C-alpha cells in the first residue's frame, strides 16, 4: 500500500470510524432506555479556550510566541457532545539585518474535532479526531492556562502521534471499584492519515489509571502498539499526588519507545500557607521540573537527537481566575552544549456562553 502521498488512507480511516460508530448505534437505544436525563440543568453551547503571549529566550535567542486556542463545546440532546479545538499561533524571531521581530504566516490547526456519546455512566464513545490519551500531559495538562511551566516536556512527542492527535475511535470512562478506589480507562484506535496538519499514525492503545481519593494519589500506565513502520510497542507511566496537608502538586511521567525514553517530575507549591502578605502569597506558586531524555534505536524529528537533561524553576502569579503570569528559568545539559532557557508568559482562560446561561431549564 502506498503510504507516502499526502492523503488519508480511505479504508483504514473508514474502518477506524465505522467500528466505534457501529458500537455507538448499537448502544444508543439501550442507553436511552436504561437511563433518564443526565443532568438537572440543561447545558448551553460554549466558546471557551485560552490565549497567551509567551516569550522565550533559548540560548540568548529571543522568540515571541502569541497563541490562541479556542474550544467550542456543543451539547446535543442529553447524551451527546461535539467538541473541537483549534490553535492559532505564530513564532516571531529577530531576523539579521532587519529591526524588530518577524514571523511567517499565522499557523492554524484544528487540533481535534470529536463527537462524544455518553453511552452509560461508565463509558463514553468518541469518534473523530481526538487528543491521543498517552500519558497525562497531552490530554490533561497541555493548554497554556493549565500547565505550570510553559515549555513542553522533552518526552511529550512519545506516543501521541505526529500532530498530538489520533483519527479514529475511542471508548473511555471511569468507575468506582471500591468506595476509596476509582479506576479510569481509555481504549483507542487510530488510522493512518498523512494529510498535514491533521496527520496521525496507525496505532491502537490503552491508558488506565487508579485514583485513591483519600491519599489523593493517581497512578497509571499507558500502552500503545504501532501498526505501521517498525510495529513497535510503546509504554509509559504517570503519577499525580496532592498530599492533603500541603498545597502541593507533584506530577511525574515516564515514557519509553524505540525512538527514545525519558521522564519528568514536577512539584508545584502554592504559597497560601505563608503567614505574611497572605493576599499576595496565596496567588503565587513555585514550580520546579527535572527531566531527562535518552535516545533510542531509531531517530525522530520531534525528539532531541542526543541524550538531554533539563531542570527548570518558575513562579506563577494568578491575578484573577483564568489570568496568570509566569516566569521561569531552565538550564539544558546535552552533548551539543549547555544552554539557558528563560520564559515569560501571560495566559488567559476565557468562557463565553453561546446562549442564555442563567436558568436551570
Amino acid at each position: 500500500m502506498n503510504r507516502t502521498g499526502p492523503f488519508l488512507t480511505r479504508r483504514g480511516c473508514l474502518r477506524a470510524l465505522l467500528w466505534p460508530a457501529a458500537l455507538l448505534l448499537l448502544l444508543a437505544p439501550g442507553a436511552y432506555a436504561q437511563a433518564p436525563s443526565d443532568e438537572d440543568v440543561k447545558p448551553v453551547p460554549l466558546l471557551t479556550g485560552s490565549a497567551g503571549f509567551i516569550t522565550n529566550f533559548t540560548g540568548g535567542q529571543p522568540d515571541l510566541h502569541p497563541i490562541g486556542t479556542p474550544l467550542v463545546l456543543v451539547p446535543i440532546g442529553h447524551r451527546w457532545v461535539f467538541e473541537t479545538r483549534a490553535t492559532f499561533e505564530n513564532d516571531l524571531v529577530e531576523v539579521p539585518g532587519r529591526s524588530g521581530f518577524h514571523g511567517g504566516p499565522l499557523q492554524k490547526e484544528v487540533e481535534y474535532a470529536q463527537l462524544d456519546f455518553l453511552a452509560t455512566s461508565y463509558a463514553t464513545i468518541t469518534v473523530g479526531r481526538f487528543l491521543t490519551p498517552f500519558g497525562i500531559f497531552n490530554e490533561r495538562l497541555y493548554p497554556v492556562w493549565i500547565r505550570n511551566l510553559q515549555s513542553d516536556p522533552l518526552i511529550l512527542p512519545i506516543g501521541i502521534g505526529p500532530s498530538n492527535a489520533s483519527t479514529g475511535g475511542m471508548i473511555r470512562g471511569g468507575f468506582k471499584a471500591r468506595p476509596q478506589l476509582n479506576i479510569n480507562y481509555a481504549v483507542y484506535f487510530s488510522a493512518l492519515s498523512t494529510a498535514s496538519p491533521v496527520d496521525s499514525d496507525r496505532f491502537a492503545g490503552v491508558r488506565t489509571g487508579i485514583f485513591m481519593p483519600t491519599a489523593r494519589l493517581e497512578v497509571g500506565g499507558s500502552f500503545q502498539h504501532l501498526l505501521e513502520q517498525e510495529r513497535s510497542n510503546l509504554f509509559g507511566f504517570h503519577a499525580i499526588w496532592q498530599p492533603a496537608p500541603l498545597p502541593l502538586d507533584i506530577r511525574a511521567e515516564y515514557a519509553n519507545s524505540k525512538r527514545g525514553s525519558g521522564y519528568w517530575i514536577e512539584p508545584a507549591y502554592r504559597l497560601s500557607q505563608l503567614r505574611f502578605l497572605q493576599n499576595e502569597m496565596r496567588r503565587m506558586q513555585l514550580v520546579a521540573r527535572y527531566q531527562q531524555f535518552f535516545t533510542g534505536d531509531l531517530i525522530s524529528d520531534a525528539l532531541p537527537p542526543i541524550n538531554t537533561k533539563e531542570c527548570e524553576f518558575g513562579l506563577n502569579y494568578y491575578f484573577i481566575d483564568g489570568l496568570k503570569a509566569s516566569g521561569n528559568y531552565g538550564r539544558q545539559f546535552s552533548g551539543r552544549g549547555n544552554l539557558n532557557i528563560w520564559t515569560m508568559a501571560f495566559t488567559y482562560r476565557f468562557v463565553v456562553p453561546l446562549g442564555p446561561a442563567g436558568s436551570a431549564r
Partner: protein
Amino acid sequence: MKRRWLLVCCLGVTACLVRSAIAQEQERSGKGSAVVTAAGAATVNSNSSHDRRSPEALRSSASEQRAARIAGEKLFRANCGRCHQPPHKFPPRVMAMAIRHMRVRAMLTDEDMRSILSYMTQ
C-alpha cells in the same frame, strides 16, 4: 473571495456573541425579578410553610444538604484540582456544559458529575 468569507465569519461570530450577551442580560433581569417575586411569596407564606414540616425534618434536610455540599466539594477538589486551579462558579447552564465536557475529559462517573455540578451551581 477569501476576505469576504472571513468578514462574514467574523460578523457571524460577533452577532452570536452579542446575542449571547443580550440573552444573558435578559436572563439575569428575569431571574432577578423572579427572585424578588419568590422572596416576596416566601415572606408571605413563611409561617404556613414552616408549620407544615416538623423541626426534625427541617434539621435532617439541612444536614443532608450540608453533607451533599461537602461531598461535592471533596469530589471537585479531588477530580478537578488534580489538573487545574479551581475556577470561579459559572452560571448553571455554563457549568453544566463544562462538567459534561469534563466528564469525558477527566473520565468522571455519572454520579460524581452530578455531585460536582450540584456543588458548583449552589
